[in-house]
């Protein structure tokens, strides 16, 4: 692990934590709120790349686990990680990894629309699918019902996917993916 990767992973873990301060929108009919934090998750993937992106989200979970109140509403500790939203939270590292993986693939010809599609598939569809299924399993309710109510997140998450793509392209010159891609291109 390079020091720079460590620091950037820590930065984005903290960033997702700070996004948890923005009041989340609670939904009456399912126990998982709409939160800005997914924007940070998606950004971690498409700005940091697969390795650092995934690391940052694992670190985020570790930080929550040791009790920092980084989830919306100032929640932390082990409780939320085994609660109904567990599937959503645990899918974040995987989502960041997958977004990073495909973003790195298209990096040299990166366009907003390409990143947007990647973000949408893995940052919205993937996370929401896993999250809804796990939620239904933990609460022992029906999977079909869980997934149907989970659809409520899709519009918001789509907007976040688009916004993240725009930001990532604007920050392209300072992205650590540049050095990752540069190194592999010369290997």
């Amino acid at each position, binding site marked *: 692990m390079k020091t720079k990767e460590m620091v950037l992973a820590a930065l984005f873990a903290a960033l997702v934590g700070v996004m948890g301060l923005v009041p989340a929108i609670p939904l009456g009919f399912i126990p998982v709120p709409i939160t800005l934090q997914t924007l940070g998750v998606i950004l971690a993937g498409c700005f940091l790349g697969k390795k650092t992106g995934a690391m940052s989200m694992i670190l985020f979970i570790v930080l929550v686990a040791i009790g*920092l109140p980084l989830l919306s509403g100032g929640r932390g500790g082990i409780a939320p990680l*085994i609660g109904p939203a567990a599937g959503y939270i645990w899918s974040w590292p995987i989502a960041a990894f997958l977004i990073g993986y495909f973003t790195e693939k298209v990096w040299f010809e990166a366009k907003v629309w390409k990143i947007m599609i990647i973000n949408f598939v893995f940052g919205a569809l993937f996370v929401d699918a896993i999250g809804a299924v796990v939620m239904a399993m933990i609460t022992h309710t029906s999977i079909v019902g869980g997934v149907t109510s989970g659809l409520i997140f899709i519009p918001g998450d789509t907007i976040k996917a688009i916004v993240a793509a725009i930001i990532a392209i604007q920050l392209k010159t300072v992205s650590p993916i540049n050095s990752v891609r540069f190194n592999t291109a010369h290997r």
Partner: protein
Amino acid sequence: MEFSTDYVTKDSFIHRLDPRIKLLSVMFMLISYIQLNTWAGFVVAIVSIVMIGTLAKLPWLYLLKAIRPVIIILLFTFLYHFIFSGATYFSLEGLFIGLRYVVRILCMVVLAVMLTATTKPMILALGLETMLRPLEKLRIPVAQWSLMITIALRFLPLIMEEWKRIQVSQQARGIVPHSLTQKMMLSMKMIVPLLLSLVTRADHLTMAIEARAFGKGQNRTHFHTLSIKKREYLYFLFPISISFIILFVV
């Protein structure tokens, strides 16, 4: 806004207990709670939680507050089972099944909350690091992860300062956002400068860490260390026996 850790400042022996003992205890007990099914089991679980909470001098109001976020889900789960899980809709059997799910989740949540309420995050992190140190032999960079926790803690206030700094100056610019959409648009415009400046800071921090010879962590020594006192091993018998009782006796 400030980050307040969930830590509740009190002087109890649970607070002083070595974090590793606490972490392992919680793990054991959580595993046993998953198997909770019989009435006797529930009684044992609840009694054990009440005992720990009392010993830790935790205000019960605090624990109530901590479970507030899960109340809706518990209600939902309860109703679902009450309606669908029995032989008929709204059966007595369904009611009990629902109750059991709710109490089981409650027990797990409260136990987890008590861990972080009685241990400062940095101490918990140190406990975690010390416990996981053997993993270094498997080439898992424990020291690095532990440093990452430290850096993330350093970034939390820094990000907010930076955000505030940019926000105040933007308001001084005379743009006073009125509607929610205006506010959101303005925030959007702040994200790129914020990230740019944070990434620059990350660069500087990287150099600072390397300048102080942080490496792979092989020969690293530790200033803060934990030591488990003899009688603390004895306390460990409590969660073990609780878990044992729940898993195999009742």
